[in-house]
């Protein structure tokens, strides 16, 4: 029983901190936090494939970008579209894309899977870059209206206000992360971990591996789309390099590797550390990617389990208990 109490208490404290954050830290830090939360959801959705199912995608920006573009385009072209609908359309765009490409991808694994996702990601990037009538090309798509959030019995909440938007974004992003966490606890969650460990045995136990991979791919893509949709609302601007470029796909990978692939919280911790590192480095240099690259190399080389892997090792040493991924 005590465990549940500790958990409840921790949750209450966490929620309290999240509510107090904009009041204590100011608008600038609040915006940085939103950026972090978007990347955290993006990285967690990627880790559903990378850490849980053992599939490395180099094209995850495809879903992030589709979510962002769909939301931006629908707000630009549909009058009086509620913000929630714009968000849902963004997710839908990413899900539809995942449904279309998944039959081709799920038959592959290992390097071949990574390559095909890279190819799809680049294809999407090039298409959006070249068809600038629709997407604005490299200049991007900006200045679309960000509607008020309509809640029954209230007048509607102004979403251009950074603090209001913070509460909205954190609720959506946090909710999505909780849903993904819940997803990993279902039987499908067990199956995907088993696919990572030994897909041949999973096949021999009577599971249809491609359809499980397919579902994971679609769920992962859908949540990446949600992250992209919030990004579009947050920036009020989407561009090919911002949401579809190769580095948009690399970033969540870097975060996941830093935080640790084999735990749920790893990517969130990685996103946090990378955000802090970036904010710190930006004061001295523009060459952030240099540090990201170095950190990535050092992590892969010396701590492939990431921060959580190191923590697990320390924990095991001190408490002589076995923890599991």
């Amino acid at each position, binding site marked *: 029983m005590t465990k549940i109490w500790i958990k409840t208490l921790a949750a209450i404290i966490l929620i309290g901190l999240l509510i107090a954050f904009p009041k204590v830290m100011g608008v600038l830090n609040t915006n940085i936090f939103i950026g972090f939360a978007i990347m955290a959801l993006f990285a967690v959705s990627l880790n559903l494939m990378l850490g849980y199912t053992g599939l490395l995608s180099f094209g995850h920006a495809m879903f992030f970008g589709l979510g962002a573009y769909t939301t931006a385009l629908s707000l630009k072209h549909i009058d009086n579209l509620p913000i929630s609908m714009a968000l849902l359309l963004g997710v839908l765009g990413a899900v539809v894309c995942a449904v279309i490409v998944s039959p081709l991808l799920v038959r592959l694994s290992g390097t071949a899977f990574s390559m095909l996702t890279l190819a799809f990601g680049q294809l999407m990037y090039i298409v959006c870059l070249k068809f600038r009538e629709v997407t604005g090309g490299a200049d991007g798509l900006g200045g679309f209206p960000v509607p008020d959030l309509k809640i029954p019995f209230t007048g509607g909440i102004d979403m251009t206000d950074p603090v209001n938007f913070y509460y909205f974004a954190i609720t959506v992003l946090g909710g999505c992360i909780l849903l993904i966490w819940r997803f990993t606890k*279902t*039987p499908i969650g067990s*199956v995907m971990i088993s696919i990572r*460990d*030994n897909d041949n*045995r999973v096949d*021999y136990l009577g599971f249809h591996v491609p359809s499980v991979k397919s579902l994971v791919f679609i769920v992962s893509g859908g949540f990446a789309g949600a992250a992209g949709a919030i990004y579009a609302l947050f920036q009020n601007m989407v561009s090919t390099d911002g949401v579809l470029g190769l580095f948009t796909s690399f970033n969540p990978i870097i975060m996941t590797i830093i935080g640790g692939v084999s735990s749920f919280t790893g990517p969130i911790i990685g996103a946090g550390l990378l955000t802090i590192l970036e904010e710190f480095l930006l004061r001295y240099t523009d060459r952030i990617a240099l540090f990201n690259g170095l950190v990535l190399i050092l992590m892969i080389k010396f701590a492939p389990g990431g921060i959580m892997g190191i923590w697990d090792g320390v924990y095991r040493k001190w408490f002589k208990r076995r923890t*599991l991924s």
Partner: protein
Amino acid sequence: MNILETKDLLFDYSGHKVLNGVNLEIREGERHAVIGPNGAGKTTLFNVITGSYKPSSGSIKFQGREISGMKPYQLNRMGVGRSFQITSTFAKQTVFQNARMGILSKQKVRFNPFSKVDKMHKITNETNLLLEQSNLAESADMPAGLLSYGKNRALEICLALSTDPQLVMLDEPTAGISKDETKTLVELIRKLTENKTMVIIEHDMDVVFSLADRITVLHHGEVLACDAPEVIKNDPFVKQAYLGTLEV
């Protein structure tokens, strides 16, 4: 009645006929051993029957239905389970989680993205029961990768049987374990395959003669003989070709 039948089964691996017209009849409920020298095609025969490879030609019938070319997951759902020569478990997961995978499949909870798996008490209970039957209950919370080799082989067999198949195919279950452990494992196999049909590949002749009702001798991808253990033991043809090289 035959539960499994292969007819003129041929498997060609880049010009090399690993299986050269294998005719196999496995009777319902029997324990059937497949023996033969290294390279005779035993594991390939298993792989072709259980769906790892497609046969080049010939037919495989399971309970009267043609199954050649079917995928492993389809065959498992029809009631074919198998173990591997090289232990194939989920090393990073606990023994309980390993066994639960089989139980999930057995209970047809193969594609449920909504329920909490830890809260599915029926699955949990059944998994614990299976582990108890497999003498693995006390290691339930241990990662499979940390088990002793003997226990790992027991888990391998436990996984093969976890989906409750009618036909179990065990590929050298006792490979590489000590005499004592072999005895325990043979007892386990005997207990778990009660009322099932079992086909076993085995090099240890003690195990073969203590378990098998009938024996098939495979040599160069062909069936050399198929009969009761006593007959096989005394078959001069088999002796000359194969058994002479082993201490019986």
